[in-house]
């Protein structure tokens, strides 16, 4: 079975508002999946359903064949799904090493072991020199990297990254892209939720596009970029019409 995560007909409502309606797609092992869409498309809601902060009102989410729709965020982490947050949620009062240790403790209950594991992960993410710094003293891009490192320390098979590239400059986006590619090489499945298309398109193996709570497209980046509904969703009717004329 090559599909590590299956989103099956997921629907989420807030009162009368439907944030996600019947969304389905599958995530293959070891791939990078981009989840994109304009503001208010329902990306974050879907992300929160997958990471179990919300439980879907309809449909199912399967992880390695198991239904995780009603799991808790900590539960799925123990099962092997790590995640980061849109707005960084590092432990600000702790040091860099301690932050990563909190993740490492999940599979290494002893402090010595956890510290070793954390140092390893820290080295991988380029934090070797900054182990004893207070996390709050890092730059935003470093903080985002720390969050990924921390999640990686829990030893996940799937990593959910929420708007990892938002707020970063071009140089930092490059670094982030390198990091994601490196993670894929190590066999991790990644789901990237991004508002900015530029960050995701070059690296994603598959892209799922949401608009207005519905899935409007799914496919390789190339396929998706030329999808009419995607263009319409991102650039509106006018642009869509103009482009039509040009190609015609």
């Amino acid at each position: 079975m090559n599909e590590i995560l299956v989103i099956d007909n997921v629907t989420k409502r807030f009162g009368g508002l439907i944030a996600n309606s019947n969304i389905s797609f599958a995530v293959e092992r070891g791939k990078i999946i981009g989840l994109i869409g304009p503001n208010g498309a329902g990306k974050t809601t879907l992300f929160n359903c997958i990471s179990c902060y919300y439980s879907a009102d309809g449909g199912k989410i399967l992880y390695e064949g198991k239904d995780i729709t009603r799991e808790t965020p900590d539960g799925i982490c123990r099962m092997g799904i790590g995640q980061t947050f849109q707005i960084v949620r590092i432990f600000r009062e702790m040091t860099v090493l301690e932050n990563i240790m909190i993740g490492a403790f999940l599979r290494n209950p002893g402090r010595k072991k956890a510290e070793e594991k954390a140092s390893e992960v820290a080295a991988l993410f380029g934090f070797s020199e900054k182990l004893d710094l207070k996390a709050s003293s890092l730059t935003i891009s470093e903080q985002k990297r720390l969050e990924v490192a921390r999640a990686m320390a829990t030893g996940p098979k799937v990593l959910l990254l929420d708007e990892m590239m938002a707020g970063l400059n071009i140089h930092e986006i490059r670094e982030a892209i390198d990091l994601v590619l490196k993670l894929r090489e190590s066999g991790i499945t990644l789901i990237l939720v991004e508002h900015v298309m530029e960050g995701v398109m070059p690296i994603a193996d598959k892209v799922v596009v949401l608009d207005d709570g519905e899935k409007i497209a799914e496919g390789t980046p190339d396929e998706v970029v030329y999808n009419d509904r995607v263009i319409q969703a991102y650039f509106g009717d006018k642009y869509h019409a103009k482009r039509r004329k040009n190609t015609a």
Partner: protein
Amino acid sequence: MKKGLVILLVFFAALVIYPFIFKNPFPRHLLIMIMLYGTMGIGWNIIGGYAGQVSFGNAAFFGVGAYTTAILLSKYGINPWIGMLLGCFFSSLVAVIVGYPCFRLRGHYFAIATIAVGEIVQILFTNWEYAGAAVGIYIPILEESFFNFQFHTTKLPYYYIVLAMLAFALLVCYAVEKSRLGYYFRAIKDDPEGARSLGINIQNYKLVAFILSAILTSVCGTFYAMYVLYIHPANTIDLWLSIHLCIIALIGGLGKIFGPVIGAFIFIPLTEFTRVYLGSEGQGIDLIIYALIIILLATLRPQGLWGIFAKSSS
């Protein structure tokens, strides 16, 4: 770290030797109270300082510990040491029953819910005929012995028992801080959602912290009952007791092992002396001074005196 250990050992050695040099009972009593509050302060620090859940209900555990021992001894003649263990058991039970729903509440909601719980426990004991209701329980005077946990001619054994309790509490706290528990508690305090995302069941870990806190407080309740030999709801399950525990932890430094001990060493003598020297005329000046100290500490030094101490020594 080495230096810290030396200071700690010297401190304990001084406490052990002190009664051999100074025989005056009042300062001994004072030290007993300091160590008792220090132990409870450490208990509070685990839930409040490390795990960041501000509890104003810890007096309930103190009361449960004191009452369990007193009821078992006065009604069934059960040895107070067994009462102490059973007190810990019942306190843990209360911690679970109360903690499970309360930990869904955040920040101020949690703090006020714990006030409500503490008050409810007090009302229950005030009206519970079996437990002596408002009259409370006079603990039967037994022969003086360690086994009976009663000493009438000297305070010395009480002194060493509470010293051992303090040492035990410090060890528990040390073990917590250096293990996964301590890290998880701090993570939960720092960012609960972040902690959840790393596989920490925050509800369960908060409960663990609450139970540890309950046990350390309950032991002190038993000690108090055997020390004063008379308990009633107003002096064992009092909101102000809970508040004093927070103040002690705050003065010393939140989430620092030694913080509550320092806090108790400052707070208890401060209240004693302002009371003795300023309070006897009932002028309220003692309260004013005491309040100003708390405000200044909270405003200027949120990390407590331990923070100042650690800074100057490093």
